[in-house]
């Protein structure tokens, strides 16, 4: 596990939320396994992972909707939960804003009533409601009954409701998963703009890498109840620390091979599927020596297909095009390598390829990494 402390914004001044040694079990299954995390003031921190990795449970524990079996959560140095000290601040006393995956817009209220609710239950004036509705561009819909809203509008109302009490922490649980692609894109920009305006600290849970990459200052990739790697987007994409993160982030193709030469000038990997690949020395894991079995990993977008006679020789990785799918802006080709291994490679429009043709697979050497097998 690596503690990536890269932060491109100047907000690394203080920790707002700390989680120490968190454990949560459901019916004997450990869902969160000794999780530790510090969230910085003003950042957007994302919990990224596949379903069942414990990211939503972590968020619910931060919100106070679940109680952990061990560990503690501190906010501004004060205990929200501490199992050992038997402390628990109920969710309604934490002053958090949260947007649920389902948005949880109350259907028996109007837009205004929904957003005013947090103020009303605390006996505060509802003067800011119209202001916050303007911020999310829903001021024209204040009197709409909630069931008359579209998905994107519900999302905005949920965001306004979460922000109206001026929380110092905003929790977002898969906020875009129920929206279509175009809406997602525009709402991502909007969320980022609002977050910058208010300077609120955000913890986001998502399984969508694009959400995570576009929004986050830092991302924690979760697996089996703890963090696999915490880093910023670029760091995660270019320098994955574990095979899990390597395969989880982006589209990645791994090919089995043997490291035949290891040298400062450059190393060579002989692939099982045929062909030799020269790789830069810094792309090879430190522990590897010449003769070791390795996995060569390449980002799918760094691959290309070539029908050029000069490159289809014995030193190249060759295969036959089995199927070509038209994806609109590009083609996707399924290529069968020697030994029956199949890989999918993107090909730009205009490429003159036919099914059944023999091709060479080439890749940008800078994008190659060599891992222990």
């Amino acid at each position, binding site marked *: 596990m690596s503690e990536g402390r890269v932060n491109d914004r100047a907000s690394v001044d203080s920790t707002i939320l700390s989680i120490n040694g968190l454990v949560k079990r459901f019916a004997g299954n450990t869902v969160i396994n000794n999780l530790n995390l510090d969230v910085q003031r003003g950042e957007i921190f994302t919990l990224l992972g596949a379903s069942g990795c414990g990211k939503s449970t972590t968020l619910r524990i931060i919100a*106070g909707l679940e109680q*952990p079996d061990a560990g503690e959560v501190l906010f501004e140095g004060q205990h929200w939960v501490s199992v050992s000290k038997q402390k628990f601040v*109920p969710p309604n006393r934490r*002053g958090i804003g*949260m947007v649920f995956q389902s948005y*949880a817009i*109350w259907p028996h209220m109007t837009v205004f009533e929904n957003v005013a*609710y947090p103020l009303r*239950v605390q006996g505060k004036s509802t003067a800011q409601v119209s202001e916050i509705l303007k911020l999310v561009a829903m001021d024209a819909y204040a009197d709409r009954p909630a069931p008359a809203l579209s998905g994107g509008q519900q999302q905005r109302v949920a965001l306004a409701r979460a922000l109206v009490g001026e929380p110092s922490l905003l929790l977002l649980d898969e906020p875009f998963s129920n929206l279509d692609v175009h809406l997602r894109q525009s709402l991502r920009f909007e969320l980022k703009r609002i977050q910058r305006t208010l300077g609120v600290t955000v913890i986001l849970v998502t399984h969508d890498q694009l959400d995570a990459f576009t929004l986050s200052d830092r991302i924690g990739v979760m697996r089996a109840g703890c963090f696999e790697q915490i880093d910023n987007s670029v760091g995660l994409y270019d320098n994955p620390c574990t095979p899990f993160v390597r395969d989880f982030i982006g589209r990645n193709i791994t090919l089995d091979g043997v490291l035949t030469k290891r040298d400062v000038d450059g190393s060579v990997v002989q692939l099982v599927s045929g062909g030799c690949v020269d790789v830069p020395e810094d792309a090879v894991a430190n522990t590897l020596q010449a003769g070791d079995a390795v996995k060569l990993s390449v980002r799918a977008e760094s691959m290309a297909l070539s029908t050029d006679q000069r490159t289809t020789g014995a030193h190249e990785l060759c295969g036959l095009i089995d199927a070509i799918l038209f994806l609109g802006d590009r083609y996707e080709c399924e290529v069968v390598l020697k030994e029956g291994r199949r890989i999918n490679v993107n090909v730009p429009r205009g490429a003159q390829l036919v099914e059944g043709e023999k091709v060479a697979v080439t890749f940008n050497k800078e994008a190659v990494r060599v891992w222990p097998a």
Partner: protein
Amino acid sequence: MTKRMPNGLTLISLLVLVLLCLFAVYPLLLLVMGSIREGVPSAETAEFSLRAWKAVLSEPRILAALLNTVLLGLMYTAISLPISVMISWLIARTDVPAAPWLEFGFWVSFFLPSLSVVQGWILLLDPSFGLINQGLREMLNGASSLGPFNIYSFGGIIFAHLITTAISAKVMLMTPVFRMVDSSLEEASRISGDTAFQTVRRIFLPIVAPTIIVVTVLGIIRSLESFEIELVLGTPPRVDVYSTLLYRLVQNDPPDYSVASALGVAIMLLMAVLVWLQFRAVRKSGYQTVGGKAQSRLLQLGRWRWIAFAFVVAVLLLLTVVPLLFMVAGTLMTMYGFFDISNAWTLMHWHEVLGDRVFVGSLGNTLKLSLGAACFMMVVGFGMAYVVVRDKSRLATVVDLLSWVPFSMPGVLFSLAFLWMVLSTPMMSAFYGSTILLILAVGMTTLTVGVQVIKSALMQLSKDLEESSFLSGASLLQTMWRIAIPLTLQSILVAGLMGFVTAGRSIGQLALLTTSDNRPLAILQLEYMVEGRYEAAAVVGTVVVGVTVGVALISKCVGLKAGVRR
């Protein structure tokens, strides 16, 4: 966490648990204790004795009553079953006209006060003045002044059950399930060469057999509830069932509480066996008939369509309009059935009854009782449903389990258990004769069903809606009041309405708890009937129908119009 933090929900769970223990488990225990001791409930010390149990197992009168209970239940279940299956099939699977209205008719029939329906039929089938008997005697020119039918008989009791709830309850339960059967199963059979009739016999009935079994067992369980029909129709021919016998044992001078309690516990044991059978049947029935969104095409009946319609309408009329019409007619006749006398029609009985202080007091009691029971159902029912659905602790599991205790105690038995509680607990004796006691008795016995209604609404409510309220800073009570209650209001009101209607018509649960101070209309009607004052009883019965079913129908219409904004 090893140690749970105290929170509001735990407090509510505890309150509900205390309520259940106090008003369901405690009376039940007293009943069991009462069956193995001698003496009146208020006695300071009591001797242990097995006399009551020996009596239950050997005394011919008690054994005969138990036999009658079982025999009657089996017989009217056996008769009502084929009729109900056929009607349900017609409504659910064929193109019989106005099917939704026919189904609604059986709902109305189910909710009609049994006593009023029976009263209407008494006026038609009384051996001497019954209109049908008079008409038949005239046609046959018989010399006899009685008969040919006599509703005061074993057969009369069976008939009374058929026209009150034995058919309507089964139709109500079976029709929705029948509708779910995938019609492609039937179509496959038709394509294989079966006739429509063969298809019903070979495909449809085997598919719905589990449902029919469950409904049948449920019907037999409910037959143990019945009380007032047997009391009114069984007294002249001296046909007792266990519930009337139990009533008589307590009303006798001196009352025999021990034997009554032992008889009650024996019935509880029988009930337990039946409930177990029912659970087994439900489990076995699995999900094979309830196939989700199956497509259901209706069978074209052709020229049989209107004949089927006429048949169902005729049954419905016999269950609802006919008895009510003659009951109302009965209120307007000087002497019911005597058309020849001068002044055959009169408003005298209405003046008499409405002017009577007893009636006015009873009307007030019924209104207090009904409104009280409605409030009880809404408040306690919601609290209990909320605990069962939202509290994940063991406490809630116990609550869920205990909530079935009052449900499994037949009305008169519950009445007896409550009587034990009031008479033997010094602090509670002040409640004897109060309406609060009646509200509790009706409320507790109806609670289980009400909780199920609210529970199903709460379970459909996404937890997010409440959690986002907590995160907005609202407490548990604020969240219940502003989110959970408004969103399940329709079901809460339905539960309240059930409480209102049940309280207005219930007799069994109250039979041993009423005094002249807290007597509601339904009990007054029963007393008039037992005294033979049919015209006065008919007036009271008409008012009871108005108060219960009338209110239910009106609120259904109003509820539909106002709706709950969703």
